[in-house]
């Protein structure tokens, strides 16, 4: 590909690409990590083969893209220009779709999305999951093959860079981002423009810009999907930021657990370099900029900005005291500006459409949109992008489709291990940095984990503390010892050995950990515990005072019991019990040997619903077992009644 040396070159290339694609249908298929686990690779190939077979190769473009957001329904496809959407695809669906939709212009009914009322929906934008979203950043994933820079350019990619480098001064770019009040999307929510300015004004010729793609919050994968599906959006934002700050060297720190993102990023960098959009004299502007990719090696704490910078230096990624901000003294003590993947990806939009447009979206304190990973006990699992200000209820129920299996909503966890669980009474809270922090949680990087009546919040608090205890670098006493002690208490509570006063001790330790830890890992570690104590104190009391787990999760506090009057001796639970703890036989009531039982819950799961004989008890004594050899009370239907 010939180098682009001006904005005109870029425009010309864009027109060339659009002309080549003119009049052609596009079949865009989800083929990111999510899709691949459901064989989307084979689906893509099936389409390519079928299109070839039907002689449509010059009329139809089959595009392998990243995640579109509705992960629950992947592999899925959107056919442009009509935006017809087919979901849950298998390779054998390709021939049908090609002949029906591409050749005969008919819809394949049985592959459409069906909503809760049984309606089949043809167009992607009308599917409730997508309808209420505002996919200004993530929407382009549908039209981009991440391994082909032309797709990005066709959508106007790199025009923001051209505008910044060729029509604006660095100060003007900085002003625009400041006016937009773009707050960091990685969890800190710090105004990016101010950070950029601090870095720009810090003494020193050499400055660095960094993409933090060390997305470590369990349950959050927005950054992975952005990097996999639209790496150029992040790169473009990064170069614009570098220009504003006066940096000529960037770093992209990616988790090594994201191999496809690393791969797609490398391809993107190569292609951008080839076109002169990266490297020396970008777009003929005289501005030089280079990027290095640095893979993480499996340490959550290394995602903290000062720790990340230390890792880039080749040292162990532990946080440092921040008497002097990293914006002033970062990598190799040089001014370094770090931002999250989503933050960088938003920058080109702000430059192209203006800060006024951006501030028109969202709330007073939180502008623009945010991408969340809506996961857990929710019907429509996936990545959703919504304007700040939409309520949690709207996100979980209107977009997420509510709780599966008719179960009751209990809480939503935001902010990962640094956040808290928000109960039903507060579901009308708008998604907003400050509002969520007020509740004792936080926006975090975007993980939104929905929990229902079968989730034990004490167990969740323990889970997070366990995670943090393992991930703590151990440098400072409040975090290292404080988290460990809190975990010990929570373990005792979940194992039925809670004591009066445990909750008060947890609160006391929390204060120390929160106020005196070196970095945010420690400082926010108490949040899951404190928020669950605040909103779900009754569950803690039940565990401690009654030795009862209301959600039926904590193994030490539950027992499984087969009700003799309901058991029909079908042998299913007996055969499936992994430790052979069920005694019984044909026609004989099955009995669980409580000594052998490991509380795995398999019998509970496999007992046929029409018998419903297995119950889970908590806080109550298990009834005495019936005598061996007791026969079942046969239910022979209406005849015997």
């Amino acid at each position: 590909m010939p180098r682009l040396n001006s904005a005109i070159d870029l425009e010309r290339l864009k027109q060339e690409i659009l002309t080549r694609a003119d009049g052609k249908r596009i079949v865009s298929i989800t083929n990111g990590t999510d899709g691949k686990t459901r064989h989307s690779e084979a689906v893509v190939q099936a389409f390519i083969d079928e299109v070839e077979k039907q002689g449509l190769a010059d009329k139809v473009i089959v595009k392998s893209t990243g995640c579109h957001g509705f992960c629950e329904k992947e592999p899925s496809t959107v056919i442009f220009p009509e935006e017809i959407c087919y979901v849950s695809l298998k390779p054998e669906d390709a021939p049908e779709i090609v002949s029906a939709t591409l050749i005969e212009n008919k819809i394949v009914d049985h592959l459409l999305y069906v909503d809760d009322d049984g309606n089949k929906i043809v167009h992607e934008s009308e599917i409730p999951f997508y309808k209420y979203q505002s996919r200004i950043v993530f929407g382009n994933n549908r039209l981009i093959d991440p391994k082909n820079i032309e797709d990005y350019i066709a959508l106007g990619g790199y025009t923001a860079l051209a505008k910044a480098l060729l029509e604006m001064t660095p100060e003007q770019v900085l002003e625009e981002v400041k006016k937009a009040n773009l707050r960091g999307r990685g969890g800190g929510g710090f105004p990016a423009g101010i950070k950029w300015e601090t870095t720009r004004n810090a003494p020193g010729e050499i400055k660095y810009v960094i993409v933090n793609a060390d997305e470590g919050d369990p349950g959050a994968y927005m950054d992975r999907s952005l990097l996999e599906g639209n790496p150029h959006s992040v790169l473009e934002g990064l170069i614009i930021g570098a220009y504003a700050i006066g940096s000529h060297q960037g770093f992209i720190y990616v988790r090594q657990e994201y191999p496809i993102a690393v791969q797609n990023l490398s391809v993107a960098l190569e292609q951008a370099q080839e076109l002169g959009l990266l490297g020396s004299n970008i777009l003929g502007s005289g501005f030089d900029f280079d990027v290095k990719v640095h893979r993480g090696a499996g340490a959550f704490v290394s995602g903290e900005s000062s720790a990340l910078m230390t890792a880039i230096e080749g040292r162990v990624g532990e946080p440092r005291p921040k008497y002097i901000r990293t914006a002033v003294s970062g990598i190799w003590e040089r001014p370094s500006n770090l931002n999250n993947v989503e933050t960088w990806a938003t920058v080109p939009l702000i430059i192209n459409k203006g800060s006024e447009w951006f501030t028109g979206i969202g709330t007073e304190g939180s502008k623009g949109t945010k991408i969340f990973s809506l996961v857990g006990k929710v019907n429509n699992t996936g990545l959703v992008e919504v304007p700040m200000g939409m309520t949690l209820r709207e996100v979980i129920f209107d977009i997420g489709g509510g709780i599966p299996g008719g179960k009751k909503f209990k809480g939503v966890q935001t902010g990962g291990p640094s956040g808290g669980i928000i109960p039903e009474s507060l579901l009308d809270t708008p998604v907003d940095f400050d509002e969520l922090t007020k509740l004792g949680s936080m926006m975090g990087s975007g993980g939104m984990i929905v929990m229902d009546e079968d989730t034990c919040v004490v167990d969740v608090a323990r889970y997070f503390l366990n995670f943090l205890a393992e991930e703590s670098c151990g440098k400072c006493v409040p975090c290292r010892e404080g988290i460990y002690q809190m975990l010990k208490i929570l373990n005792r509570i979940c194992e039925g050995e809670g004591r009066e006063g445990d909750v008060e001790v947890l609160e006391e330790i929390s204060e120390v950990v929160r106020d005196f830890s070196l970095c945010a890992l420690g400082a926010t570690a108490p949040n899951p515990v404190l928020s669950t104590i605040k909103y779900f104190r009754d569950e803690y009391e039940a565990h401690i005072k009654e030795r009862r787990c209301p959600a039926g999760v904590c193994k030490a506090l539950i027992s499984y019991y087969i009700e003799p009057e309901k058991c029909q001796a079908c042998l299913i639970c007996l055969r499936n019990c992994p430790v052979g703890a069920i005694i019984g036989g044909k026609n004989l009531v099955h009995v669980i040997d409580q000594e052998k039982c490991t509380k795995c819950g398999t019998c509970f799961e496999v007992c046929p619903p029409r018998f419903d004989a297995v119950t889970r008890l908590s806080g109550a004594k298990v009834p005495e077992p019936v005598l061996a050899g007791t026969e079942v009370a046969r239910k022979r239907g209406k005849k015997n009644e």
Partner: protein
Amino acid sequence: MQMVQEVAEVDEIIAKYGGDKSAIIQVLLDIQREHRWLSKGVLKEVSQKLEVPLSQIYHLATFYKAFGLIPKGRHSVLVCLGTACQVRGAPRLLDKVIETLKIKPGETSADMRFSLDTVNCLGCCALGPVMVVDDEHYSKPSAKEIQEITAARE
């Protein structure tokens, strides 16, 4: 002979990064992927070539989860214990995997076939709970499926 070959491979990897000291974590990642562990001999070579003290290298090797100082099995089995998978029953999946492989997380089977580890979020939460064997992801595998999948790997 094997040692000589290993050293040669390590030198190649170091050369790939231009002998840059700050790229040491990248070098170790590549070595881990090639050899499935970081042996003492290999680390000594890295220490010499990159002029980084061996103690610092051990600091790195023991800090980051991706590195192992004991050889890993031929096939890696990962069970995700991220929050979303946790809420969808990951601990139970882990129990089933432990039963099938007869090893606990962090261990390698005696015949060196499998190493089992837990991970904190692979980023495919819609499929939770998830098990990954080598590079293949499996969503909600049953006990029977786990047996079949692992039996198929030599």
